[in-house]
């Protein structure tokens, strides 16, 4: 990722009272972050529309409203760093460098899709960029991330792993076991809880004994920080600190991004558990608009540049959908390919 080459200019600008990300990363990196946020948003809107038109099978979980978390966390990562993702994983995938055309192709079940049509939305991945995959099992990716971090340690590399999961996942045994193992072994992994207030219909208050998921970091003797998950800079700041800590061999961290999903849980949600007011209040705090305003306000981008970026994204989405449509379906006689390696 380009942004991975970002220079830490923050040190040289002490006294700078711009938001962290703006002083820490090069303008090109910041522009790219905005581009990724748009791309995620428009990708998901495009996927939703394609779903309505019957081009996409099954269900999908949209992260609209949560883009700052995906992009902010991935800002300090290199292509050699890895992530594990969730059922709500489109944003993570794009933030970790995937191409939307191959994502659309996957959603359309095509051979050119990242998973050759075998995985779909819930298993979207771009392994070449270090994304070990979305996961249909809540909490399923967390121990896998710890295993990837163990590989890094045993292979004496300096990379890190980020494990994304939701607030609902923090009540799974897998969360507990994985965080404990990572802490005992001091592995380079960053646990990122995207707390959007609900696991499906169940609010964190009704599911989780503590007010903040980050409060549980104490049970694993690791730092636990809470950030405004709709503020890209705040997310990036927490990520930079945790990534540095991990690269320095000081062990894992837990970051909780407080955020919100604008859409229902999935395609089957009657939305009976959230009020209109709550949803609207969060839409007003849309992470994309906030970051865009910051970039313009601090002179990193002009309005025109923002407009051009948006247009580029539109084109990328339209081209991606065309690519996906034009791509071939897998042959049914190949259905058993990839079950085993050979």
């Amino acid at each position, binding site marked *: 990722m380009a942004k991975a080459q970002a220079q830490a200019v923050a040190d040289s600008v002490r006294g700078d009272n711009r938001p962290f990300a703006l002083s820490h990363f090069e303008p090109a990196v910041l522009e790219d972050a905005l581009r990724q946020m748009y791309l995620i948003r428009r990708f998901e809107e495009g996927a939703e529309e394609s779903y309505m038109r019957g081009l996409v099978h099954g269900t999908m979980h949209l992260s609209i409203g949560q883009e700052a978390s995906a992009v902010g966390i991935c800002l300090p990562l290199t292509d050699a760093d890895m992530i594990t993702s969730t059922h709500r994983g489109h944003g993570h995938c794009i933030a970790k460098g995937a191409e939307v055309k191959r994502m659309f192709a996957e959603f359309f079940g095509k051979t050119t899709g990242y*998973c050759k049509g075998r995985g779909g939305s*819930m298993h979207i991945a771009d392994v070449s960029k270090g994304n070990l995959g979305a996961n249909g099992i809540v909490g399923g990716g967390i121990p896998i991330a710890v295993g990837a971090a163990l590989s890094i340690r045993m292979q004496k590399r300096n990379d890190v792993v980020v494990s994304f999961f939701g607030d609902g996942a923090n009540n799974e045994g897998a969360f507990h076991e994985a965080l404990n193992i990572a802490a005992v072994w001091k592995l380079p992994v960053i646990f990122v809880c995207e707390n959007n207030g609900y696991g499906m219909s169940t609010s964190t208050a009704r599911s989780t004994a503590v007010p903040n998921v980050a409060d549980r970091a104490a049970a694993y003797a690791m730092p636990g920080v809470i950030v405004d998950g709709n503020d890209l800079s705040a997310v990036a700041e927490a990520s930079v600190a945790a990534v540095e800590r991990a690269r320095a061999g000081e062990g894992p961290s837990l970051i909780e991004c407080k955020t919100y999903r604008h859409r229902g849980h999935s395609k089957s949600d009657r939305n009976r*558990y959230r009020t209109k007011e709550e949803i609207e209040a969060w839409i007003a705090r849309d992470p994309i608009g906030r970051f865009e305003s910051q970039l313009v306000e601090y002179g990193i981008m002009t309005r025109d540049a923002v407009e051009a970026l948006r247009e580029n994204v539109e084109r990328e989405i339209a081209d991606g959908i065309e690519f996906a449509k034009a791509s071939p379906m897998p042959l049914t006689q190949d*259905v058993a390919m990839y079950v085993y390696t050979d």
Partner: protein
Amino acid sequence: MTTRELSYAQAIQEAMAIAMEADERVFLMGEDIGVYGGAFQVTGDLVERFGPERVRDTPISELGGAGVAVGAAVTGMRPIFEFQFSDFATLAMEQIVNQAAKMRYMLGGEVSVPVVMRFPAGSGTGAAAQHSQSLEAWFGHVPGLKVIQPATPHDAKGMLLAAIADPDPVMIFEHKLLYKMKGPVPEGHYTVPIGKAEVRRQGSQLTIVATAIMVHKALEAAETLAAEGIDAEVVDLRTIRPMDKDTVIASVKKTSRLLCVYEGVKTLGVGAEVSAMIAESEAFDYLDGPIVRLGGAETPIPYNPELEKAVVPQVPDIVTAARELVSGRR
């Protein structure tokens, strides 16, 4: 008793409501079964009728939730625990298999474990490999459990009511594609016994033993076969454990041919037991040809809809297999 048309999901919901009205020990637990109504709207609005104490949303904690249900069952309650998808049973096998199934035995009969667990199962919804499995065979391998797989709304209600009344742990596998299927369902309380298969169609030339959604596919195939002059008997197995040997044996003795159709992975799936049970029974001597199985392909369930269809038996597959078996080409 009046009979109405209800969907399979409605029939299950009605069974739960009847049991909860009749017995205050009965309650429901599961993820998003309250205000959300369950991932497949099976619990629907029951929370409004019975309140959140008896229609209890759990945290996303399958192992803990199953264990809580087991603990409640052992101490006087009658919990019905819903897994959101049967695939998540993989997180709770410990409590189901080591605790629920064995507790009565390990404690020398001092307790019973009257828990019911419900598992939405099967493929066909585009949910891919981790949300589409048919794992009932695993449970059928576990002494101490009872395992049922109703194929119709009528049986779903009656077998669930039988399960709730049962003193032992009963696992009920509900095929997701059946939830919207409608059929006649009597009002009020009735039970359909656990452990009894049902002959859905009489026939003389071969027996098709099928489970869950495959019963309907087998019946459809039987119509096609009938048009070709092949007279198939269709047996709905209904219970995986304890299996109704008598009904299957009697059918095979009559028809001399056996085809097993099931959606779970073929190897070590339910049809393996049906086949082996017949091959070691007195019906063996009546067999006029090999015992054929049509089961799920030896792959995870793929996402692409065409591939997804290709990995489970479809009506034409059943027709072809039956035709070959009867004609002696197998």
